[in-house]
């Protein structure tokens, strides 16, 4: 049997992480979470991650640093969905250039979030 799809939630608010944990668990995914850049790099290298849901502003740095570190270690997830509060084309471009598969405007309606994850796993 294929192992379940694993999602790593990178988000510094435990409230938001908890909400996503419920959502993804109910949707049949295996869920892991990190709340800092350092923790996300550790989780991303020590476990196989299929999708990373990435909040960009973290207490110890910018979420995009995680992508760079994981790339160097050869542990990039299959896809990374960035979540940001800014909709301007410039910050979107920065995220895509850094290797994000998609940039979503927070808060993402759950239907849209689940659709995007499915789409990027296909």
């Amino acid at each position, binding site marked *: 049997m294929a192992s379940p799809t694993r999602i790593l939630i990178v988000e510094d*608010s435990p*409230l*938001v992480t*908890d*909400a*996503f944990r*419920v*959502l993804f668990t*109910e*949707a049949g995914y295996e869920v892991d979470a990190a709340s800092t850049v350092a923790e996300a790099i550790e989780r991303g290298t020590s476990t196989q991650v299929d999708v990373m849901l990435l909040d960009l502003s973290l207490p110890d740095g910018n979420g995009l640093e995680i992508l760079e570190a994981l790339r160097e270690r050869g542990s990039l997830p299959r896809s990374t969905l960035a979540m940001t*509060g800014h*909709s*301007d*084309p*410039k910050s979107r471009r920065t995220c895509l250039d850094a290797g994000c598969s998609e940039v979503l405007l*927070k*808060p993402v*309606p*759950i*239907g849209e979030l689940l659709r995007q994850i499915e789409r990027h796993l296909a």
Partner: protein
Amino acid sequence: MTMSERTEPASLKKRIKTLESQARDAQRAIDELKARDALKTQFLSNISHDLRTPLAAIITHAEILRDGMLGELNPKQRDSVSGIVSGGQQLLDMIDEILTYVRSASDQVNLVPTEFNITEVVDQVRMLNQALAAKKHLSIERLNGDDLPPVYADRDKIKHVLGNLIGNAIKFTPDGGRIWIGFSRRGKEGEELVVEVGDNGYGIARDHHELVFREFAQVDASPSRPHHGTGLGLAIARKLVELHSGRIWVESELGKGSRFFFTLPLNAQRE
């Protein structure tokens, strides 16, 4: 020269000294007010951001329930949870409005101009507001504009301005009323586009025509006022229009509806 000036140089010097000292005091007071204002803006920015996060969690949890992911709800339960979602989203829109204001007040807004048809944007905003207008049986029509040349402006910002003006028109027009959007051109070669958002609603007394564009100002600011909001919509609209080198104003009388106008240069200088 008067007698007193010739005979009282000492008192004149004293007077100059006093004035200089008063000017210094005034400057100190201005500096302090500016610093406090910056602090207040920073506070607004922080608090808005901090309010957004738990609210996002509330909305996500409510959506999970509403969509039956934790078990089917009966129709009454679903309605109630849907109310949490839409109330949360409304609150979120208000917080975003405050954040937009904070960014524009501290000159953090950068225009990204492109060429586009303003009528398309007007029609988009009309569509977005259709459901809200239908609840009050209001009509929103676009009177003209099919033959306008494209404008060169920041599309999202102009959409924001139109959204705020049309949103206000919906709020302040009683059931069954009429809202319209029209265009005219000004200047020797019609180089200035004037956009009008009008309604036949409650109207605004002449004394309040300036006030409505001030931040946090509401004509009725009492807690029991029938129309709630951040009081920032028109202040933001003004900032965004002014960033485009345009002007915004209102023509209105109590009980006779309101006509809001803003201008955009049609052949704005491109970089």
